[in-house]
Structure formats: C-alpha cells, structure tokens
C-alpha cells in the first residue's frame, strides 16, 4: 500500500457536486485530487450517435450505471424481515463514471418551494402536530429558501436552464410557476418547445383553473456560454435523454459545464478507476487524514488531504460514512444516532391517457420537455381535511417513446398475443403520459445501515435499505389519482388509467433514482449528520454533498437543490473555512 503526497483536498466522486467542489477550490488556489471509480468519458467520442441511441444497451442493460454484480444494496420493507440483495437494479439505478448521474439524467431542474425547507415547523404552525403522525421524522433543513436563492441562481446559470420565471422579486408572472419562491432574475434561457400532448394539457388544466408552466430544463434551448466559459449545444429533441448521454453537448452535465475548464486546470488531478474504500481518521476520531482507494491497476493507495469531500451518489455517500465510522449510526429501536436516519424516496403516481386517431409522435422529445402545474405541490393547497402533507409536481411530459419500455396498452389488455399486439399498434402513437412526482416524508422505520451478511466485490459490507410506504405517501398517491383522472378527462382522452402506490414499496419496477437522506443536514447534531454547509458535525474537515443531505424529499427532481447546496457549501469554504479551518456552524 502506497501513501501518496498530501494535497489540499480530495473529492470522492467526480459528478455534479465533485465538479463544483474542484472548480471552486482550484479557483481559490488549492490543489485538488478527484477520485472517480468509473471511466473517463466526454461528448466526443463517448456519447456519439448512432451508438448512443441504443435502447437495449443503455435503457435495459444499464450501460451508464453502477454494476450490480460489483456493488449493490440489500433491501427489506421493515426491520422484522431479512434483507436480500438487489440482484439487478429496478426501482432505482445509480449512475457510474465521470460526471455521474449528471450524464444520463433527464435535466429537469427545480428550485424547491420555501415550504419544503421548513416542512415540520410550517406544518405544525398551520395544521398542528397531529397531522404528521408519531412515526414521521420529517424535519426542517436548518436553511431557508431565501438563503439558498443566490446559489440556485448560480447553478441555473451554470447549466443554462431554460424556463419561465413565475415569481420575480415577489411579482407573480402568469405563464411561469406562480407558486415558486421569489427569484432575483429570470432563467438564463427560454423554455423548451411543447409537445402536442403538452398543448392539450395546458388547455385542459387552464379550464380546470390551474396554473400551467413549462418545466425548467437543462436540455439547452439555445447555444449558450456559461459563466465558466463552457459552451453548451442546442437540444434537438432526439428522444434519447434519461439513461443516455447527450451527443449534442446540449444536456448540462459535468462534461458540458465544468470539465472544459477543469481539464486544463493544473491544480486539478483526476484519477479514474479509483474505488474508494474509506476515509481514514486520526486517533482522536475527530479529524480525517486521508482516503484509501483501489486504483485502476488494483493496487491499494492512500491519499492524504486536508479536506475530504464525500461527493458520490446519495446512497453511496451514506455508505462511505458508515464504512469510515464518521458520525453515529442510526438505531431505529432507540431512535438515536444519525447516519442512515431519514432515508426518503419519491412517490410517483402515473397515468397513461389513451386516445383514438391522434399522432402524438412522442419519440420527438427531450428529457425535461413538459408542462407542469404546481397547484398540488408542497403546501400550495389546503391539507386541513386531507390527513397528509406535501404533494407533487403534476406534469405532462413524454420524455421519449423508445419502444421496449414505451408501448402502453389500456388496462385489461392481455400481456401478449394478438390482442396485445393490436393494442400496442393502436395506442403507440395514440397515448400520452401524466405523472405526479410526489414528495416523500421520512419515518422512524425507513433507514440505511450496513448489511450483516452480504459484501461487495471489494469485500466490504453492502448497505442495507429498510423502506416502505406510510401514511403520507399512500394518501398523497390516492389524492393524485383523482387529479390525474380529472386532468386526463379535461385533455380529451378516451381513457385515463392512473394507478396509486401498491401497499408496499417494491424494488422491482423502475420508479425514481431520487433517493435522498441518510446523511441529512440540520441545525441540531442530535438529528443531523452535517450542518447546513454539508460539514460533518463530528469530523469538521469532511464535507458530504448531494441529496443525502435532504431530511425528506420534495415533489421535485433533486438536482437543482443538490447544485445549489454545493455552491452554498463552497461559498462558505472559500470565504471562511480556508482562512480558518473548523466548524462553520
């Protein structure tokens, strides 16, 4: 085992947050090593058509994703059961490789609502504590929307997000999201084009009295040069976005926004093929001294550093803390400890709309194309008689019509044979999708810890996920089914099939890779792993970035908030921590 020359900072995982860390620290004059377990890749030649438009390789065989054969998670619904390994990914699919999930994402880029950051206190203030229920551990983030606004702005301008403001400095703007928190300036780019189904949605929900607006998108709507000097291409609506990389350089990613500068930066060194085993602490356990990893040649290396950034996927961040013994692991029996606590997910309630004699051409699409209403998100509507909190962004978005996974048939259609084929042919271009992407609360029974039985390819314990749906998720989903059916009708569909959540969370069907929590932020070390700057309460030279810091999930895609939080952290590190290392809060 070799010990390498010490550097100012090591970043574990070079995706969105790792790239932001490396960019900001090198600008401040520090030397940074990025450890990326996957391969180097860039738009040309790795993302080129036609090979990247291969549904089997990318959509089914998960070309850009974590290899379950090497590293997966174990799963059970509750702690009375025995967790078993997720042998092939289904419900969620973590990314792999340089740029992380930011390479294959759809590009939907939200700001969370002001309410989302103060879920517990505002719920109690408006409805009383009873609505939460005894087992709900959702909490405030310790940070407000207003504090985060400048950093949302930075991430949106980094990516060149296309959208329409609905609240500029408190002034509501029709056609934008009138429910959003106030923003200081508009999006850098105009919204995306709309699909035919989006037009029907806009008309239908307007008749119902709701407030449609274009979904904010990181699929670039015009050629754009970002503040880092990187040039982003133009989205051509190819219909291969999520699970695919972008051949146009038009989807904001590490590659299109930060890598062009990082690549030339002498203060940044990228090491790919580097699988990190653990963060090493000194004998006091209060200071991290190095990171141990297996390099691309299979050799164990130890890289000392003054600062260590845990910037992998949310679940893998939590596992890294558990393997490194940073922070006290959560114990659901005594409800003490923090690492692994408040794991949460996303409640997707979908509907397919069936028409006759239409030509939707949904294969002309982008990942983030769509039209949305926020009338039933967060606390934008009165929950007094509903017995649940939170809600969903309710969107018409057909991000693709790739046929292995998209060939809808009406409920009751046989799954094979002549009647199935008839229905597939009839409805392939006569259907559209609605989705309510709902928030998910945190509970005492949903948590992450190390599995006692199963190991990864490196001999380290897999992480165990204990997760089920509880009151707020079931009631929200049933509520959204009614809304989706009503909207389908208003859109002129012959039939709308909306389905509520099953009784138990099921690891098999794909739902969302918006896994959040487990290393949550907060203002109280008893109920959070990191402070509001993503800094470990226990080991102050370790920062943990990403959706692992969300105390529960909002009814939105997480990346906008992940990016904003990373910039919020780096602002404090560059302006305060570097001058005077130590706790920032």
């Amino acid at each position, binding site marked *: 085992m070799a010990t*390498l020359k010490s550097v100012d900072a090591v970043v574990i995982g070079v995706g969105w947050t790792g790239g932001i860390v490396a960019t900001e620290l090198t600008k401040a004059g520090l030397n940074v090593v990025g450890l990326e377990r996957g391969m*180097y890749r860039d*738009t*040309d030649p*790795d*993302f*080129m*058509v*036609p090979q990247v*438009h*291969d*549904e089997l390789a990318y959509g*089914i*065989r*998960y070309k850009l994703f974590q290899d*379950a*054969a090497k590293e997966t998670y174990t*799963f059970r*619904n509750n702690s009375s*059961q025995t967790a*078993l390994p*997720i*042998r*092939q990914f289904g419900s969620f699919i973590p990314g792999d490789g340089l740029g992380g999930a930011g390479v294959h994402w759809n590009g939907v880029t939200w700001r969370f609502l002001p309410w989302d950051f103060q879920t517990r206190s505002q719920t109690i203030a408006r409805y009383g504590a009873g609505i939460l229920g005894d087992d709900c551990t959702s909490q405030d983030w310790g940070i407000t929307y207003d504090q985060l606004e400048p950093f949302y702005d930075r991430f949106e301008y980094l990516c060149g997000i296309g959208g329409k403001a609905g609240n500029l400095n408190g002034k509501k703007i029709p056609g934008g999201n009138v429910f959003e928190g106030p923003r200081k300036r508009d999006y850098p780019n105009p919204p995306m*084009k709309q699909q*035919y189904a989006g037009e029907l949605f806009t008309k239908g929900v307007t008749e119902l009295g709701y407030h449609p607006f274009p979904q904010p998108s990181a699929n670039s709507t015009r050629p754009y*040069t970002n503040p880092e000097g990187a040039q982003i*291409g*133009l989205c*051509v609506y*190819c*219909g291969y976005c999520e699970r695919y990389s972008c*051949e*146009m*350089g*038009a989807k904001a990613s590490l590659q*299109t926004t930060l890598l*062009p500068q990082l690549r030339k930066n*002498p203060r940044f*060194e*990228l090491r*790919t093929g580097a699988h990190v085993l653990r963060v090493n602490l000194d004998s006091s356990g209060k200071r991290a001294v190095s990171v141990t990893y297996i390099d691309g040649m299979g050799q164990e*290396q130890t890289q000392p550093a003054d600062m260590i950034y845990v910037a992998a996927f949310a679940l893998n961040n939590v596992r890294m803390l558990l393997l490194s013994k940073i922070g006290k692991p959560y114990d659901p029996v005594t409800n003490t400890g923090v690492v692994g606590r408040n794991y949460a997910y996303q409640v997707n309630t979908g509907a397919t709309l069936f028409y006759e004699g239409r*030509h939707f*051409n949904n*294969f002309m*699409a982008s990942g983030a194309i769509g039209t949305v209403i926020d009338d039933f998100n967060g606390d934008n509507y009165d929950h007094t008689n509903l017995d649940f909190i939170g809600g969903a962004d309710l969107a018409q978005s057909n991000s693709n019509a790739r*046929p*292995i996974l998209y060939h809808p048939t009406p409920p009751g259609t046989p799954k*094979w044979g*002549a009647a199935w*084929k*008839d229905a597939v*042919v009839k409805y392939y*271009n006569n259907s559209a999708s609605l989705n309510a992407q709902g928030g998910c609360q945190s509970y005492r029974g949903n948590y992450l810890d190390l599995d006692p039985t*199963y*190991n990864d390819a490196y001999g380290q314990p897999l992480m165990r996920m204990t997760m089920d749906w509880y009151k707020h998720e079931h009631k929200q989903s049933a509520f959204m089914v009614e809304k989706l059916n009503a909207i389908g009708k208003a859109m002129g569909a012959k039939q709308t099939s909306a389905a509520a959540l099953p009784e138990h969370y*099921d*690891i*098999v069907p794909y739902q969302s890779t918006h896994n959040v929590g487990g290393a949550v932020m907060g203002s109280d070390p008893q109920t959070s792993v990191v402070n509001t700057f993503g800094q470990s309460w226990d080991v102050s030279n370790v920062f943990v970035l990403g959706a692992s810091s969300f105390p529960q999930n909002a009814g939105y895609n997480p990346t906008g908030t992940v990016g904003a939080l990373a910039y919020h952290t780096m602002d404090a590190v560059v302006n305060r921590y570097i001058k005077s290392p130590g706790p920032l809060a």
Partner: protein
Amino acid sequence: MPDRPGLSRASFVAIGAAATAAIVADPNVAEAVTTPAAPVAPKAPAHPMSMPALGERPEAYAYFTPPEVAFVEAAVERLIPTDHHGPGGKDAGVAYYIDQQLFGRYGRGDTMYTHGPWGAALPTQGYQLKLTPAEVYRLGIAAADAHAMKTYGKLFHALDGAHQDAVLSAFENGTAESDQVPAKTFFGMLLGDAVQGFFADPMYGGNRDKVGWKTIGFPGVGAVYYAAIDKRNVPYVVEPVGIADAMKSQMAIHDGSPVDHVQTRVAGRTTPKEIA
C-alpha cells in the same frame, strides 16, 4: 505533480485534448444542425404498411439446443403473432435475439449480483434465484415441454396454437407444474425478452428489417426533430433507421452523399482551440 505515471495529469490532458466538445456556438451552426430535421418525402408507404417478404437469415443458434430452438421459435410466435400488422416474433428473429443474449453476459448473470445466501424472498425483493437467466430458460423450457406432453400428449412446438396458448397461460398464471424453476419466473423472463427482441436495435438479431419499429411507427435511432416537433397531430412517416444503417450513412456523409432523417456525428465539429 503527478504522483503516479499511469494516472498523470499529463495523460489526463492528453485524453482531454483528443476529445472535442460538442459545441453549437453560433446561430448559423445551429441552423445547420436543424436543417436535416425535416422528414424526407415518404419513401416508404404510409403506415401501417404491407410488409415485404423477409430475406433468408444467416444466423445460427449458439446457446439453445435443437429442442429448445423448436420451443422458443414456436413460443415467441404465440407471444407476438404474425397478423395483419406484419410479421411476428419468429420471423422477426426474436428467438435468435434471445439465444444471443443468453449466450452472452446477460445469460451468464454477469450483470447481476450473484452471491449467496439465497433466502426465501418477498415479492418486493425481486429476483432471488441462484439460477442465471440461461439456466432459467434451460429448466423452464424443459418444464414447458413436459407440461405440454403430460397435458396434451405432444411437445409444445407440435401443438396447435390454442393449446400452445394454454400452456403459456399455465406458466403465466403459475398453475403449471415446474419443479426446478418457478413457472411465473420463466414466463416473465421469456415474455420480457421476446418484447425486447421485437423492439431492440436489429444489430442484436431480433427486430429483423426493423419490423418491430415499422409495425408501430417508431423511426429508430432518429436524431434531430428540432423542426418536426413543432408540427401538431400529423403522422411522421419515414423509413426507420437502425444503428447499422446510420453507421453506413456516416460513411455516406464523408462521401458527400445525402443523408436521411438521421443526423449523425453532430459533435464531430471540432474547435481548434480545444486541441491547442
């Protein structure tokens, strides 16, 4: 500054320089990108179309034994039948697709976490058998043929369509006897793989002549719909393009030949300063 020669920044920069970003920096270039988006005048008849006779296939089976070939070819034709929409699973090469998949990484379970112990699973915990997909087929096909023989006195492939459907339904519903692999698991894998074979790119052996795509009107690898997406509720009629076609047309671009509705190698435009 590099600590290890193999992972030096110098080599990182070299990789970076070799790679060139996809940049659409000015509106003129953007316009050039959008130009090929207009659908070409339909060379193909309006959809749904009559299917031409499909050619002789050169493929051979790598994993399936001859009795398994007989079963799978018959089964995929019942799952995706030939009808007035066009050829079904057998002529689309779906059995060949499945064979190729089982012969490779997927069939060997190389894409799955395969370590034990293998406990009794809840339905919400997903696939938990020790068997690889290739082994599921071997055991499942044997069970299906045994069920056909016991129930109807013939192997599956020799039954008429209605009896074949009854056997498949017994596996779909889990009512068939199948000692070594759960009937439902085998059926679910067979159906899922058959649908994949019908709709995956033809380079994997199924969807022969893009018949799956033609049947539903999917344009294939497609690419640039920047202008076409603005049209509302009108058919988009094109000859579907597969990856192999598009790779040929990349060569055609280099020859100066016209291209179809597929925009290829957009990011091939390099910027000299990136290389410097």
